[in-house]
């Protein structure tokens, strides 16, 4: 299970809770094992795992997480695997403030390093939709960052 650490990192971002993230990864890996016959040879196994994870998470009727601003800094660092440092916390906060749709494409396409085509497979949306979502998400993130830069003296 070479993907487990990466899946766990993504799950922590998705759920915002350590235990919930552990449970989500376990469920994802078990589902992947059970449904391995459905995996199409030639496609990306890694993308397939992320797709299962997102389906599991949203299939559980969870609301998309919006990390509360009251979570202490240390917990944020721990949960989000954010590197310490004010700059890093700033961009992490800006990401959390984005709508879920934008946050998800940035996490998959930028942080996890999936191509636009792979993100389109994971989210089951056309590649054109992924590209326009990524453009809007980058634009929103840039705006959030420039707002926070204005606030910080």
């Amino acid at each position, binding site marked *: 299970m070479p993907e487990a650490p990466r899946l766990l*990192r993504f799950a922590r971002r998705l759920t915002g809770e350590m235990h919930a993230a552990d449970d989500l990864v376990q469920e994802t890996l078990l589902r992947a094992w059970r449904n391995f016959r459905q995996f199409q040879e030639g496609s990306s196994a890694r993308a397939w795992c992320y797709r299962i994870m997102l389906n599991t998470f949203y299939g559980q009727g969870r609301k998309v997480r919006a990390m509360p601003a009251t979570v202490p800094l240390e917990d944020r660092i721990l949960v989000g695997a954010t590197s310490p440092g004010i700059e890093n916390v700033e961009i992490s906060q800006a990401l959390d403030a984005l709508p879920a749709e934008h946050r998800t494409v940035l996490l998959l396409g930028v942080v996890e390093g999936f191509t636009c085509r792979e993100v389109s497979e994971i989210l089951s949306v056309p590649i054109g939709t992924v590209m326009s979502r990524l453009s809007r998400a980058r634009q929103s993130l840039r705006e959030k960052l420039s707002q926070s830069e204005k606030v910080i003296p």
Partner: protein
Amino acid sequence: MNCKEIEELAPLYLSGEMEEDRKVLFHTHLAECRSCAQQMERLSAMDARLRKALCAGLPEAGALERSVSRQIAQKRAEWWQLIAAVAAVLLIIAVLNYGIFRPGPGARLFMEVTRDHRQEVIEHQPRRWRSGPSEIEELAARYQLRDVAALAPAGYRLEHAKMCGLDGQPALHLVYTNGVQEVSLFVRSRTGGNRGISATSAGDVRLASFQNDRIQLIAAGGASGDCLRFVRFAASVL
């Protein structure tokens, strides 16, 4: 390529998916348009900042992996237990069916006699027949019988004999002939059941048997009524 196209295709460029010929056109525009070049630099720097912030290190997932492996092993074991349980149920059903529908003793003897005959005559599996009187008496002595030639009614003479298996038991197979018909007389140790004479038939095959405290005689073949006549006579001699 114009500025709008650059904006639309930026995600493919930043993810490294852009085809080479398109990338040449993309770079050509960036070299000519300062505004687009700056925008791409800003986006690229922001991506790098995001990665640096969130990819600081991978969390430890060893315990999680071990837990998943354990659960998979457990589920596999449960699967095998289920298969074993289903197999056991099928076996019980098969045994019960056999107990209910298995052929009765008379029918089993028919089957054995028919099988033995088929193996010898049709499948050409020669038996070790003995035709010398002393050899036959030697076999009969196993059942404490003497002068088995005299067990046949008038008109029949002893032709030959052999040892065979009958319903899982060794038996002495004696063949008598009157020149036209042949009658087989099987001798084996008593298997239980009622003493005396009984007859059974299946289609045009008839069997008659006689049983005392020690042995059972079974007659098969011959003309209609010959079997019964044979065992009655043999019983009177014994």
